[in-house]
């Protein structure tokens, strides 16, 4: 399994590093592209999950062990989507009562939730990763 994984990753790193320049931002983009390609190579159909922000739909990206943005102000009933753009698994879990959790989000995958109240959340796999949703 590890061998297959490294083959897949090897292919991916090859295929996405050709154009990469050397600023930090762009270097990390290689990791992001990679997770997307990972899906494609295993399933052949899934398009990259795009960041989408409209009046009632918001995206939080998970990258480099951080929720970006870490704090988000929304309206009651808005949908929030989290995309895992890191190279490890993460989840999104309500912090105070553990009243809901996304369960682990695979690399390159997303998870969405309709949010009705202000919430502190964290990644239960990496306790120091925290985020906040503020419902206006």
């Amino acid at each position, binding site marked *: 399994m590890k061998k297959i994984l*490294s083959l897949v990753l090897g292919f991916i790193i090859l295929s996405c590093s050709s154009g990469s320049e050397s600023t930090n931002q762009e270097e990390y983009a290689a990791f992001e592209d990679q997770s997307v390609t990972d899906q494609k190579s295993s399933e052949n159909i899934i398009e990259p999950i795009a960041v989408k922000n409209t009046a009632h739909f918001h995206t939080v990206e998970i990258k480099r*062990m951080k929720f970006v943005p870490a704090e988000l102000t929304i309206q009651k009933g808005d949908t929030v989507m989290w995309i895992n753009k890191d*190279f*490890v698994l993460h989840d999104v879990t309500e912090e105070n009562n553990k009243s809901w959790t996304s369960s682990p989000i695979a690399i390159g995958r997303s998870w969405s939730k309709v949010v009705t109240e202000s919430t502190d959340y964290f990644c*239960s*796999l*990496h*306790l*120091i990763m925290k985020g906040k949703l503020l419902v206006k």
Partner: protein
Amino acid sequence: MGAIICLFISYSVIAQDNPKLSDAEVASVAVVANQIDIAYAEIAQKKSKNTEVLKFAETMISDHNAVIGQAAALVKKLGVTPKDNAVSQSLLSDAEKTKKMLNSKTIKSFDKAYVDNEVAYHKAVIAAIEDLLIPETDNAELKELLTNVVPALKPHLGHAEMVQKQMSK
């Protein structure tokens, strides 16, 4: 405490005895350092009954395997074969002692020993990557990989310190 001393010894070995590592040797150190933390976590899975410790160990196995996957892919791409060297040897021999120490703990005293060691080990590894491996690496992509691993290791350290704090209450 013994483990902490071991780590400082191994870190000083890294710092003093090896003025220059080749990229193939840096790759070997990177893989070995991750394998060691996985081995510690596997001992925790066998010995611990503490939910927080078990969850932390699970994250260590998953994340360090992901880093190894990245490193394996890169060395394959670069056509480099990770090369055994004095630093990886010293990490491994210290890890053998630490594993013995962890395995010898009673269930009651295991959790603290494991988590204390995780705090010390992550501190040592972060310092070694930042101060030694990154400066020693010539290949830009290997340097980039090591640079990207540090932001993943720091939350591990923070996580271990949180569990450590919870246990001391």
